[in-house]
């Protein structure tokens, strides 16, 4: 672990701009979004984390997750011309530096890896992963929607990162390498090696951050999940859903997509199981005709099927789906509700 001044890090990022794309939080209309930095503008747009009394009481989180830089919202696969296929998507060859990714979403990358780098590897995703160095940022003040700790993550988690940053007073960072790529990057960051005092400070920050997360998702036993599959409960809790799909689009682990043609262009676009066309077949057959069956799919896919297939839940507790739901559907309340019903002897 090394203590690195913000200006040293800034200098490195500035240097990287020459041969790398930088993905980092940028402010727009009062909210943060992960974006590619405009190389012309340099670091002007980059929003640095704040610490101390002047910092906001909750860490401002980006609206979008980092998912789209590995699995784009709309990917032009190829053009289908009479003379043949003209590729539009090349694997990412450009080096990329992803800055200030939170532990929940870097962990989400390791979950997406299980899908896109599993039995069949998606070469676009693979190259994007290989050519991106992930610099993570620990959360000092998780907000009221965060629940990463009940899903195996934490505000100081490092899964999926190459290098982790913990912001400390005096515009400095405690920098810890996580991977070989991170070691290499750290080698170009000058600073004092951290000592016992910093280790201790880090522990305190970590404990405080973890304690600040009060939300807990209580995942029912698989048996209970199975029992409640056909419950009327799903009708009740999904009634408000307007199937806008924002929960899926902002989710760092949702990976469903559509393949469609737009003229001669074949596209791969994000999609959502909330959509009433998601499983509808051409002849009208649809095994999820009712809204509650689609909402239920989202919950069971994340907390039951994905776990069965990949030994992890497809949720990292970032809270985006709840933070941004236009009708205030709360995934934690809904999942905990099953357990609540079961504990109260409620009939499935």
């Amino acid at each position: 672990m090394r203590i690195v001044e913000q200006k040293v890090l800034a200098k490195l990022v500035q240097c990287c701009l020459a041969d790398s794309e930088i993905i980092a939080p940028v402010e727009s209309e009062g909210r943060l979004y992960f974006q590619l930095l405009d190389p012309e503008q340099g670091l002007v747009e980059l929003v640095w984390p704040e610490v101390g009394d002047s910092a906001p009481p909750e860490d401002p989180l980006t609206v979008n997750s980092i998912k789209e830089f590995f699995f784009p919202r709309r990917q032009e696969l190829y053009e289908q011309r009479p003379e043949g296929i003209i590729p539009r998507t090349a694997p990412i060859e450009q080096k990329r530096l992803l800055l200030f990714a939170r532990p929940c979403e870097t962990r989400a990358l390791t979950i997406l890896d299980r899908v896109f780098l599993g039995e069949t590897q998606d070469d676009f995703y693979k190259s994007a992963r290989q050519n991106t160095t992930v610099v993570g940022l620990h959360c000092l003040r998780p907000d009221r929607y965060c629940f990463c700790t009940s899903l195996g993550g934490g505000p100081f988690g490092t899964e999926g990162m190459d290098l982790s940053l913990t912001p400390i007073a005096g515009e400095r960072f405690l920098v810890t390498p996580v991977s070989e790529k991170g070691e290499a990057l750290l080698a170009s960051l000058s600073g004092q090696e951290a000592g016992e005092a910093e280790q201790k400070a880090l522990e305190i920050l970590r404990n405080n951050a973890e304690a600040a997360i009060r939300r807990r998702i209580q995942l029912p036993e698989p048996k209970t999940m199975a029992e409640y599959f056909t419950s009327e409960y799903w009708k009740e809790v999904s009634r408000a859903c307007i199937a806008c799909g924002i929960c899926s689009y902002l989710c760092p682990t949702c990976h469903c997509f559509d393949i469609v043609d737009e003229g001669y262009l074949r596209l791969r676009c994000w999609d959502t199981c909330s959509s009433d066309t998601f499983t509808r077949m051409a002849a009208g057959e649809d095994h999820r005709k009712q809204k509650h069956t689609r909402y239920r799919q989202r919950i069971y896919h994340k907390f039951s099927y994905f776990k069965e297939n990949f030994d992890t839940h497809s949720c990292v507790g970032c809270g985006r789906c709840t933070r941004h739901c236009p009708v205030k559907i709360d995934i934690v309340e809904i999942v905990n509700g099953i357990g609540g019903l079961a504990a109260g002897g409620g009939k499935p």
Partner: protein
Amino acid sequence: MPTQIYTPYAARIEELRIETRDVKTLRLVFQDQEVGKNFSFQPGQFLELSVPGEGEATFCLVSSPKERGYVECSVKRVGLVTEAIHRLDQNALVGLRGPYGNSFPLKNMEGRDLIFVAGGIGLAALRSLIRVVLSRREDFGSIRILYGARSVADLVYREELEQWQSRKDVDTVLTVDPGGETAEWKGKIGFVPAMLEKLNPDRHSATVITCGPPIMIRYVLAALDRMGFDPQSVITTLEMKMKCGLGHCGRCNVGPLYVCKDGPVFTYAQIKEFVEQIL
């Protein structure tokens, strides 16, 4: 380089056969001969077939893997992509990628009596397997094909049905739904599941392989339950909306299964708990 997993091969429609008013069978030849030579598949697997500008859809391979140099798909006109395919003439180019999915467990069928139970275009999903089985006739016990459609005009693969009927070593039973018969109709009249029960197959010696409209499969499975069939010796192949064919896009997910990569062929035992959801 494109993301190669989605890049189709160009294939030419060498032959078009009109099966019914809304079903055509396409014989497709890969433009690149090398690709054609190396392309192999197993009965039960499927393809993504695409028409530039219209989209891509999932079709089972209906030819036998032993037929080399081409593959065949049967396409029922029901939506955007299938309508576009139906508008194509002989020699038109389409895109093909695949094969995807698992295949019928031929090894487990050897020595067994086989009963194929199909409805409508569902026979397409079994045709490849039937062709293989008939080409290795001696490896199996008795073979029965029960095939039904809404009406006489909706029966597909007419020539082949006649061939099967003329074979002494295959018992082919054709049926149409009540009201779907014509004056000349010599087959049965009645729904497939009811016909199956009338045939009263031996639950110990027979393996049943079924495909058809979801409602038919559901009633066939229920009939087999009543007859005491072991769900392990009942095999079906499922149709589900799919896009990628690789278990990535999430569409065909039912329970922990992805129909595209864990299926499309399943034993009844594997899907029993999901039948209410999908059929």
